[in-house]
């Protein structure tokens, strides 16, 4: 792997950048692998990287039907935080957050992880109760999260409107200072490059169309648009398309795929220092390094694979943004897009073995799995390599829905992302 550094940039600059090599090979599929990952998002690429790096399994292919990072990894609002309520969730997301904190160095790729703080606004007494419950639970779990008064919240984010005479005044906020954002594309590319360097084949434009199994039902490999590729271990990390892929092995999952939208404004000079989320009035926002305001909208009400959604969803979000930040009303929406998020009944993910031998699944991240990327990938790799879950992802089974052991953050908190 060509090492990236200021020095290498200088050196290559002098050589007019003719010497740079592909960041990952344009690999052609081999007949078989020790493990196959379906889905070249951050989670899939990361899993391949950790399989090679942590478990020494390097004969691995990542199969991506389009271009890597083109799924939700490439279309999310990049909010990273770990102040989740339940012990199982806090463990999972904080595991990820700790990996984020060293990721650029680990991958030798600047993923621009920026710990600018994530602030969640409380607008009514119920919000206050819920957020304080989080703050207390997090403290015991060793996860940073603090309660701010409206004045403190405004000090942290000067753009915030804390006038008590608005429709939904800000009554306080929960702040996780370690939270922040990262450059989404770089996460996919950084993992791809690092995995490739360890021998992983990253195969784009390769759609999995079937899962071949032996007489006992165990996985033999996958049919793809580029032919059959054998492997006794197949890990599926296909986000919105998980139901489709798992259906190929007759595994039904408690998932529904919804369009989720986001939008950016035109770029402006630095004006917004952190991430602000308001669940009650359905808006969240940060400013990217390039200067756009990055704004998350809601899901549409129906399932869909179209990667777009209705205009009314975006307008509703902007109504909320303009209420919280009336000075941004003259800003303009530059681009509005959608992703497909796979949602489980308890809004928590599944990282688990499946009833089919050799088939593993990592899905159900819904509207909030970018933040988990390194953690989920790391745990998924463990589960595939060892054929058993890591203690952190042990609760995240498919069977929990049958047995009722839900990890229902949404019901408990009504907070997304």
């Amino acid at each position: 792997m060509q090492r990236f550094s200021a020095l290498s940039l200088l050196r290559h600059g002098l050589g007019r950048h003719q010497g740079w090599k592909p960041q990952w090979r344009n690999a052609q599929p081999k007949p078989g692998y020790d493990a196959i990952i379906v889905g070249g998002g951050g989670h899939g690429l990361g899993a391949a990287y950790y399989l090679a790096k942590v478990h020494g399994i390097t004969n691995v292919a990542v199969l991506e039907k389009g271009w890597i990072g083109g799924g939700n990894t490439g279309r999310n609002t990049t909010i990273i935080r770990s102040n989740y309520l339940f012990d199982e969730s806090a463990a999972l997301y904080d595991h990820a957050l700790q990996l984020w904190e060293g990721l650029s160095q680990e991958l030798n790729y600047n993923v621009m992880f920026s710990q600018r703080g994530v602030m969640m606004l409380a607008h009514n007494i119920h919000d206050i109760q819920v957020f304080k419950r989080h703050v207390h639970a997090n403290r015991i779990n060793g996860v940073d999260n603090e309660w701010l008064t409206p004045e403190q919240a405004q000090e942290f984010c000067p753009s915030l409107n804390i006038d008590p005479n608005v429709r939904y005044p800000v009554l306080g906020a929960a702040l996780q200072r370690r939270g922040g954002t990262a450059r989404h594309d770089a996460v996919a590319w950084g993992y791809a490059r690092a995995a490739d360097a360890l021998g992983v084949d990253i195969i784009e434009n390769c759609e999995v169309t079937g899962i071949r199994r032996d007489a006992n039902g165990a996985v033999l490999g996958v049919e793809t648009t580029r032919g059959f590729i054998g492997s006794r271990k197949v890990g599926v990390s296909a986000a919105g398309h998980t139901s489709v892929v798992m259906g190929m092995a007759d595994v039904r999952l408690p998932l529904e795929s919804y369009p989720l939208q986001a939008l950016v404004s035109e770029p402006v000079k630095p004006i917004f220092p952190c991430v602000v989320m308001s669940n009650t009035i359905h808006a969240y926002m940060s400013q990217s390094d390039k200067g756009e305001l990055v704004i998350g909208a809601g899901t549409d009400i129906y399932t869909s694979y179209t990667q777009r959604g209705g205009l009314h969803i975006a307008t509703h979000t902007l109504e909320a943004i303009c209420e919280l930040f009336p000075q941004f009303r003259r800003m303009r929406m530059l681009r509005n897009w959608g992703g497909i998020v796979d949602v489980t009944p308890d809004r928590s993910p599944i990282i688990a073995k499946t009833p089919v031998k050799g088939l593993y699944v990592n899905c159900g991240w819904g509207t909030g799995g970018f933040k988990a990327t390194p953690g989920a990938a790391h745990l998924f790799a463990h589960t595939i390599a060892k054929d058993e879950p890591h203690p952190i992802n042990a609760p995240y089974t498919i069977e929990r829905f049958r047995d009722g052991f839900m990890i229902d953050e949404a019901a408990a908190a009504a907070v997304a992302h």
Partner: protein
Amino acid sequence: MSKQFRIKGTGRVDPSRPINFTFDGKSYTGHQGDTLASALLANGVHLVGRSFKYHRPRGILGIGADEPNALVGIRRDAARYTPNLLATQVELYEGLNAVSQNRNPSLEHDRMEVNDKWLSRFIPAGFYYKTFMWPKSAWDKWYEPRIREAAGLGVAPSQPDPDVYTQRYAHCDVLVIGAGPAGLAAAKEAAATGARVILADDRPVMGGSLLAAADTNISGEGEDWYSAGAWRKEVLAFLEKQPNVTLLPRTIAFGYYPHNWIGLCEKLTDHLAVLARGAPRERLWQVRAAQVVIATGAIERPLVFPENDRPGIMLADAARTYLQEYGVAVGQKVAVVTAHDSGYRAAHELKAVGVDIAVIADIRGRSVVSDRAVQAGLNVLTEAKIEGTSGKLRVSSITMTAAGMRSNFACDAVLMAGGFTPSVHLFSQSRGKLVWDNKLQAYLPGDSAEAERSAGASRGRFALAEALADGVDAGREAAQAAGFTPGTPAFHPQVTVKHAIGSGGYLGAAPTSADLSKAKAFVDWQNDVTAKDIVLATREGFLSIEHVKRYTTTGMATDQGKLSNINALGIVSEATGRSIPQIGLTTFRTPYTPITFGTLAGHARGMLFDPARVTAINDWAVAQGAAFEDVGNWKRAHYFPKHGEDLHAAVNRECLGVRKSVGIFDASTLGKIEIVGPDAAEFMNRFFVNAWTKLGVGKCRYGVLLREDGFVTDDGVVGRVAKDRFHVTTTTGGAARVLGMMEDYLQTEWGDLKVWLTSTTEQWSVIAVQGPKAREVIAPLIEDLDVSAEAFPHMSIGDGKICGVPLRLMRVSFTGELGFEVNVPSGYGRMVWEAIWERGKAFDMVPYGTETMHVLRAEKGYIIVGQETDGTVTPDDAGLGWAIGKAKPDFVGKRSLQRPALTAPDRKQLVGLISSDGRTVLEEGAQIVDPAAPKVPIGHVTSSYYSAVLGKPIALALVRGGRQRLGESLYVPMPDSVIGVQVAPTVFFDPEGARVNV
């Protein structure tokens, strides 16, 4: 400014109406009808901006929505500052104040120029992914703030926007987008059939390219011929007269959404010097069209050659249009670089007004068109290579090689004619399939996905006669598809034109002998993406065009690749040896051009952001000075402070008032559902956990509702008002959800039941009168109902009259006191409330709010769904196991209660907590641990208050295995201390329940 760039007698601007404006503080004059760009050009100003990354000086490149360089801030007043507006779209008005962006301190001198001069070599595409990683902490603290400082374009507004925005839905048979020749023809044909037509065009004047059509004549429906201008006027006059036609100038179609739902943004005031008070700035139109005609024209294509970005270098047809529309010559000595016949047209027309054409450099070979230009005395080079340009703040010369000769031409403007790219954005947003046309070297609309068709230049019909004919067909077909019958065609467009648009075009990096790995040949002007950046991306393995876009940011600027995408494709194609259709395209997304947040938010602001629901008694509480809280959409009185009391003082007083004598509370927000029909009881049995069959008429029961997964979702008191009629109450927030859930089961599962459901939440005002004196207060006001203890015991319901109006009285208590809930038709709510209030004065009755209500019920251990429960709590967890009708074979959620997790022995159960010190009020949400394992939370505090009547704090909590722990000592760890607590029963006050039964 001594030089004169305004050509008298040309264009549609009005020289008799001069307009003064400033740019970067300097005063200029333009004409009525000018844009900021045309006025600046008329004043000889080309330098208007600095680029994003290298901070290179930039001029006006185009004339419309595709402009990447000429972004300015417009300041009307301190609060009306708008960044990033396109000078090409800003209409001039008296006093307009424009400022340039992304430069420091000035456009002429920008400190960040170092980026270009010294650093650019080391900061190619994606450089930031490769560096700034050491030391680790420096990213947040040092590098990132600096990157941010350098990035961004304009400055965000800093004050709340005082302007208002408006909105309208509309329906039509045919929506025509774009009012160029194709759009006008389509609108006219469609309108003539009687179809309702909306014609929208983003420019202030309709006509599109006709506005710049010089020496052009168009045949009419009869024998007459019209000049292009006269034809345009004629058609518009016709359309204006039609009652079935709506003309929307200054209206951009920004989004094509599923099912022919189109978003339009109409600009209403930005062009006015004086704003009328309260006049909306923009209007959002949401149009539902039976059929759509997309006639959005084409976007001119720039040429990619070294240093193609100096101020004064611009698009050729744009320059021609500045001349024909605004009477502005963009230079005095102009070089034309062309790959399309339209470059010659620009040269001819500029020459005709006396502009010196330094050279026409055609990268193609000799042709009829080039020969004709030579005949006209123009200096033409064919098979030319473009080597570079010079000039610091304005282009001063261009270098090219032709026939082996390298020559340098002095000039003050360079025009690029790379051809035209059909504007297929809206078509593509509609999810229609684009098809690569090899001949036109462009993507054209293929199969439609919606009820839509494209016409004119937007589908490659560039010649005017073709565009007109195409418009005619599209208008007729669209009307027909919408159910109208076009008559016999009368308009068979013929056109005579002096210089036709012709053909040609090029994409990718234009031929040059310069080393493109060194030169800066710009593809995306705004984001400073050069040909070498794109090649570098492919070298680094970014082969998908989507990756190239994201790695280099080409096409991600505010013009969204209108100019750059096609050339980027050409370069990738060449670099990777794949054809353009193999490479594909990036996704066209909404909006077509940036749209103001305020426009999208529309009327939803302030108190109209979200309905604030108020009860009939609300205004009384306001008058009393109550503090309010938001519960869902409702505003509820939170407490009634007296003489400067704080929350706690008020609540203590209110609580004691209720317990001692009597209090009055507005419970109107509680959801109410009337369940009627012979199978009402059976429905109730299937739906709620409780058993209902035996509930007598006139009796009430506390009902608990589960989701099908077994967790508590709502509760409320239910009264049986007749054998076939139940009065169900729900939580305030749960009303709509519960009714929806009931309808779901009734309509889709239990079609066998004869039952109907009606929301009566707002039919009734609910006045809770609670306290030992409650009966004494209300009894004298009541007629036709005996409310004595014997006749009307706890949990009774009955109808009668109060204050002469209908009454539905429930004897229920959420306080543990003797209590009544007086239901009266809500139009009488305030009157009855005041009558009770008057009577209550003799008993020192207190009005109380939701906070006191919460304390009183907590003293009695009554739960609040959503506070004691959170969607993970079973009836048994909440201590409501007793409510379950044990003998019932089924009810919603019953089966799920059998699942292993829901029967596990160590579930969290509701208990009471008493602070060991007898003083500390716990924090709601605080966690609870066992002293034996102080790091493992075993529960949390759900409710916590100071109880005035008990003189100590009380709390409710969900604690793992809680009911087994009665009397145990546990800890509540706080940031700075640990509070000891004791597990207690949930009922703190009057555990025998004696007080309700009086």
